[in-house]
């Protein structure tokens, strides 16, 4: 067992060694280093071939046509391209956008930018379990709604939204539907040939590929058009200019090829780890799972350990790499906006830890982590005046706190 133990796979994953090999084959003079846009020689042709093969792997994992995939620098750029691309192209159709309060910042900040440009945005409140339902979306639809952007799997909670229901509603009303699926690939099946989704964002580095590469699915049937956000050279049929980074693209392609092949076995293994983890951690008094446990992926588990502050818990778990919704771990000193949107009290948001498991997580990792958690929570509660008050039967909501 190597320490520290990495349980932050939802933040990023290590590159699979098979992917790393593929990447290194596309860098040096004796490798496939050419510019895929070079039409005049073999170096270019070979690079283009590698890029197109990678595109097929990506398309194959998500059930679409390779011609529907546009390479981007990551899911953030894909989100920006989708949201601003639709808004800019179809602005005469309407100036209203629907999204949710628990989207990734890439979606939220792209929407904020459009607000500055005269669009109106509705930010939906999720259910208590962290889900955005078609019903919630339906209530927000207006005559001038042009785009709905809702994530597939929430990065902090792991909750899975029903894309079919939301997409069907969007189709029925003639509204474009964008989905941020950065957390989905290799975790759940996606079949875009059946899903009523117009645009979908992907990231390589959440699925054992390299950072700095992602893709946007843009539907051809029905045909969806977008306005490019980066100009020059006309790569990717003019939708995203810039020399294609062959090594990163083949890395993403290989990562997604492996994901297709190994999704079932990865999933089975991670489900077992999740079960083991949950069974043990749920024995601890006063813990709360954030997000509907029945409607979430098993690679993400977000737990609030009441009466223990998240940053101190992370410090006490120094051999475990996890992230927290605690204000103290963020530069802004604000607790997680996702947990707050669920209506969780600030102190529960501050007590939250996100554990995320992956392909290289072992049974021993989980066992060791569990023993550390039990120890750390016990120690920190012994140190916590709030825990003492809880044991004394004092309702913390009735205390007159001296805020500072």
């Amino acid at each position, binding site marked *: 067992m190597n320490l520290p133990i990495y349980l932050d796979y939802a933040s990023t994953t290590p590159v699979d060694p098979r992917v790393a090999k593929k990447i290194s084959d596309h860098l040096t003079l004796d490798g496939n280093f050419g510019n895929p846009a070079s039409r005049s020689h073999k170096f270019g042709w070979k690079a283009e071939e590698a890029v197109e093969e990678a595109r097929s792997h990506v398309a194959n994992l998500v059930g679409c046509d390779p011609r529907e995939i546009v390479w981007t620098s990551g899911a953030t750029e894909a989100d920006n391209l989708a949201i601003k691309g639709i808004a800019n192209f179809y602005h005469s159709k309407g100036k209203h956008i629907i999204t949710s309060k628990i989207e990734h910042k890439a979606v939220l900040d792209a929407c904020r930018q459009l607000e500055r440009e005269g669009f109106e945005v509705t930010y939906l409140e999720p259910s208590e379990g962290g889900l955005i339902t078609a019903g919630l979306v339906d209530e927000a639809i207006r005559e001038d709604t042009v785009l709905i952007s809702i994530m597939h799997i929430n990065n902090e909670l792991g909750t899975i939204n029903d894309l079919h229901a939301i997409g069907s509603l969007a189709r029925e009303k003639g509204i474009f539907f964008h989905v941020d699926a950065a957390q989905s690939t290799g975790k759940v099946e996606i079949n875009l040939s059946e899903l009523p989704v117009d645009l979908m964002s992907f990231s390589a580095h959440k699925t054992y590929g390299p950072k700095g590469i992602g893709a946007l699915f843009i539907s051809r049937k029905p045909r969806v058009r977008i306005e490019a956000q980066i100009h020059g050279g006309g790569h990717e049929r003019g939708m995203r200019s810039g020399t294609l980074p062959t090594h990163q693209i083949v890395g993403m392609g290989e990562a997604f090829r492996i994901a297709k092949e190994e999704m079932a076995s990865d999933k089975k293994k991670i489900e077992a780890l999740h079960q083991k983890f949950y069974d043990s951690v749920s024995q601890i008094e006063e813990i709360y799972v954030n997000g509907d446990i029945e409607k979430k992926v098993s690679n993400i588990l977000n737990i609030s350990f009441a009466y223990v502050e998240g940053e*101190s818990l992370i410090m006490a778990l120094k051999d475990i790499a996890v992230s927290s919704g605690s204000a103290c771990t963020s530069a802004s000193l604000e607790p997680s906006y996702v947990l707050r949107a669920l209506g969780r009290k600030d102190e529960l948001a501050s007590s939250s830890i996100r554990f995320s498991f992956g392909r290289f997580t072992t049974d021993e990792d989980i066992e060791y982590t569990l023993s550390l958690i039990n120890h750390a929570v016990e120690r920190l509660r*012994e*140190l916590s005046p709030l825990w*003492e008050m809880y044991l004394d039967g004092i309702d913390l909501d009735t205390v007159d*706190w001296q*805020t*500072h």
Partner: protein
Amino acid sequence: MAYSKKVVDKFENTINEPAKYNVGRFDPKDMDIGTGMVGAPACGDVMKLQIKCEQMGNTHIIKDVKFKTYGCGSAIASSSELVEMLLGKTLEEAKGIKNIDIVEALELPPIKIHCSVLAEDSIKQAIEDYEQKQ
């Protein structure tokens, strides 16, 4: 958060050896105990500090201290540091302890200065509580 080694050591020592580092509680009703509790759960930190004093001539000496803190690593380290500063001091000397003393002792990063302010507030309140009882 990149903490100084001092914060990390203080935090780890405190959670690993709570008794040695004065984690605990006194009965707040006892006449020789002064209790201060500052902060709020919603803000992410609550410090409870209790001093046990003894009269020596016309002055009062802090003979023992107990504390409990809910908060980030630096909040816990700050209160633990404060407790060490208080032991054996007269109340007048204790009143002279300022948050900057804790900042310097632990090399707190600027974003965590409020933890030391909270610690200073907790001792002020504990002394006030004790003096009211006398």
